[in-house]
C-alpha cells in the first residue's frame, strides 16, 4: 500500500481524493494492459479521417489508425515519463535536501547555491534546446526532465530536515552513536515523507505537461505515440480546422484529467501538512 493512504479522511477531504485515486488506478490498468483493452492491434490501419461509428468509437486519424487504440497505447508512455521523471527528481531532490539540511555548514551553502542557480534556468526552453540537439528517446527525455526539476523538492526537504534535526528523537539517536546514514534512513525520511509526497505528485504533473509540450513541438521520440503527439498530429494534419473533436479532445481530456488527479492528490497531502503545522 502507499504509505499515508490510511489517513485518508473522507469527512475532512470529501470524496475528491477517492475519485482521483480511482482515475489514476484506471489509467494504471490501461497502461499495464493495453493489448487487452485496445480494440485493435497497434499497427493496424484503416481508411483515414473516418467519423466515429460502432467499429471505431473515436474514428481514425490521418494515417488510418484507430484513435481509441492510439489513446490506449499512449497512456503507457505518458504515465511512464511522468512517474519515472518524477521519481528521478524526487530521488535527487530528497538526497540533496536531506544532506544539506542535516550536514549544514559548507555542504549546505554549496548545495543551496547550486539549487538557486538551477532554479533560475528556464526549464521548458532548456529542454527544447537539448531535445533539438539530442532528438531524445524516452529514457533520455526522462533523464533530462528529472535532472531539471529537483530544486523545489530539495528546498522543501531541506527546510523540513532543518526543522526536525534538532528534535529530541534525532538528538538521542545521535547520542546513542548511530551513524548518520541510519539516522537519515530510519529517523528522518519517515518523518518528512508528508512533505516529499506532494512534491513528487507535482513533479509528475510537471513532467507530464513538459512531455505533452515537447511532443507538441515534434521534439520527443518520433516513434513514441504519446497523448501530446496525438494532439500535435491533429494540429498539423488538419484535425482542428475540420473540427474533428473526436480526434483532439480525447487526448486533451486525458492529459488534463491525469494531471489534475495527480495534482489534487498532492494538494491533499499539502493541506494535511499545513494543518499539522498550525496545530
Amino acid at each position: 500500500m502507499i504509505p499515508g493512504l490510511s489517513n485518508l479522511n473522507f469527512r475532512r477531504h470529501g470524496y475528491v481524493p477517492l475519485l482521483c485515486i480511482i482515475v489514476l488506478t484506471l489509467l494504471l490498468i490501461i497502461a499495464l494492459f493495453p493489448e487487452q483493452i485496445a480494440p485493435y492491434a497497434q499497427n493496424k490501419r484503416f481508411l483515414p479521417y473516418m467519423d466515429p461509428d460502432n467499429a471505431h468509437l473515436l474514428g481514425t486519424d490521418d494515417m488510418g489508425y484507430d484513435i481509441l487504440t492510439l489513446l490506449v497505447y499512449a497512456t503507457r508512455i505518458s504515465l511512464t515519463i511522468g512517474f519515472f521523471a518524477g521519481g528521478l527528481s524526487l530521488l535527487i531532490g530528497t538526497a540533496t535536501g536531506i544532506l544539506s539540511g542535516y550536514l549544514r555548514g559548507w555542504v549546505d551553502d554549496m548545495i543551496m547555491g547550486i539549487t538557486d542557480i538551477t532554479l533560475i534556468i528556464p526549464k521548458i526552453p532548456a529542454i527544447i534546446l537539448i531535445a533539438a540537439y539530442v532528438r531524445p528517446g524516452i529514457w533520455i527525455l526522462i533523464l533530462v526532465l528529472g535532472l531539471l526539476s529537483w530544486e523545489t523538492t530539495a528546498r522543501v526537504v531541506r527546510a523540513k530536515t532543518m526543522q526536525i534535526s534538532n528534535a529530541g528523537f534525532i538528538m538521542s539517536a545521535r547520542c546513542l552513536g548511530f551513524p548518520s546514514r541510519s539516522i537519515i534512513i530510519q529517523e528522518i525520511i519517515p518523518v518528512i515523507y508528508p512533505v516529499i509526497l506532494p512534491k513528487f505528485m507535482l513533479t509528475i504533473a510537471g513532467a507530464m505537461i513538459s512531455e505533452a509540450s515537447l511532443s507538441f513541438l515534434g521534439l520527443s521520440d518520433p516513434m513514441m505515440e504519446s497523448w501530446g503527439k496525438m494532439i500535435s498530429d491533429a494540429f498539423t494534419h488538419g484535425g482542428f480546422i475540420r473540427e474533428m473533436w473526436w480526434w483532439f479532445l480525447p487526448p486533451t481530456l486525458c492529459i488534463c484529467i491525469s494531471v489534475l488527479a495527480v495534482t489534487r492528490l498532492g494538494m491533499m497531502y499539502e493541506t494535511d501538512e499545513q494543518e499539522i503545522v498550525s496545530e
Partner: protein
Amino acid sequence: MRPFLQGSIFLFRKLIRYSCSFGIIVLLVFLLPRMMPGDPVANLVGEDIYLTDETKETLRAALGLDSPLHEQFVLYSIHLLHLDLGYSYHMHGAVSDILADRAGWTLLYIGISIIIGTCTGIYLGARAGFEHETWWSSLISSLALIISSTPPYLLSLIAMVIFVYHLGWFPFKGFYDTFHILSIIHHLTLPVLILSVFYAARNVLIMRGTVLSEKIQLYPLFARSLGIPERRILIRHIRKNAIIPLIALIALDFGFLFSGALFIEIVFSLNGMGSLMYDAILNRDYPVLTGTFLVIAIFVICANFIADILSLALDPRTRSHP
C-alpha cells in the same frame, strides 16, 4: 543608512547567483553543439542548408573550431559581449537583428497579460481566501486548479476551435492585417485573454493559500476587535502581507509562463519569439534556437531581479535581515 546597506548586500548576493546561472546557461549553449556527434559546423549553423566546402572551411576558421575548447569559449564569450549571436542561413540575417525584431511583440503581449493576470489573480485569490467557506470561493479555486493544470497550448487550442473555427469571432493568425491599432487589438484579444486567464489561475491558487494562512494570525483578529470592517482588514492588512510571497513565486514562475506564452504564439501563428523558435526547430536552425534561448534566459533573470528589488521595497523584513 544601515538598512540601505544591507539591502544592497542582499541584491549583490542575488546578482552573483544570477550571473552564475547565466554562466551555466551560456556554457550549455556553448557545449551542446560542440559535444554532439556530427560535424560541429553543421551543429552550429543549422542543418537542412547547403553550404559549399569552401564556406564550411571559412566558417570553421571564423568560429575557431580547430582550437582547444577553452580558447573557443573565450572567442564565443567575446562574440556574445558584442551581441553577436551568430548568423542564420535560413532567415538570411544576423540572429540578434531577427530577435530584436520579434522580441518586442512577445514582450508587449506578455506584459499586458501579466498586468491583467496579476490584478485579477490577486483580487479573486484574496477574496476567495478571505471568504473561503462560501460556495463561490470553492468554485473559483477549483476552476483555477483546472486551468492551471492544463498546459497553456491546450487551452489555446480549445479556445481556437471554439472561438475561431466554430464561432468565427476572431482572426486565426498573425498580429495584424493592416498596421492599425484596432486590427492589432482584434488579433491580440484571444491570446492575451488565454494567457491572462492562465496567469490569473496560478496567482489565485497562491494568493488564496497565503491569505488563508495570514487570516489565522493574531493581527487580523486584533484589527477585528478594534471594529475595523472586514473588507478593510482584507485590503489594508492581510493583502499587503500576502502579496510578498506571491512576488517571489511569480518571478520563479516567470520562466514557465514565458514558455507558455511561446506555445500560445505557436498556436495562433503570432510572429513573435515562440513562432521563431518553432520554425527554428522545424528547420534545425540552431543559431536562432540558441539565440532565442539566451534571450529568454536574460528576460527570466531580469524578471527575478526586479522581483527581488520589489520585495525589498515592499517588505521591511528583508531590509533588516537579509
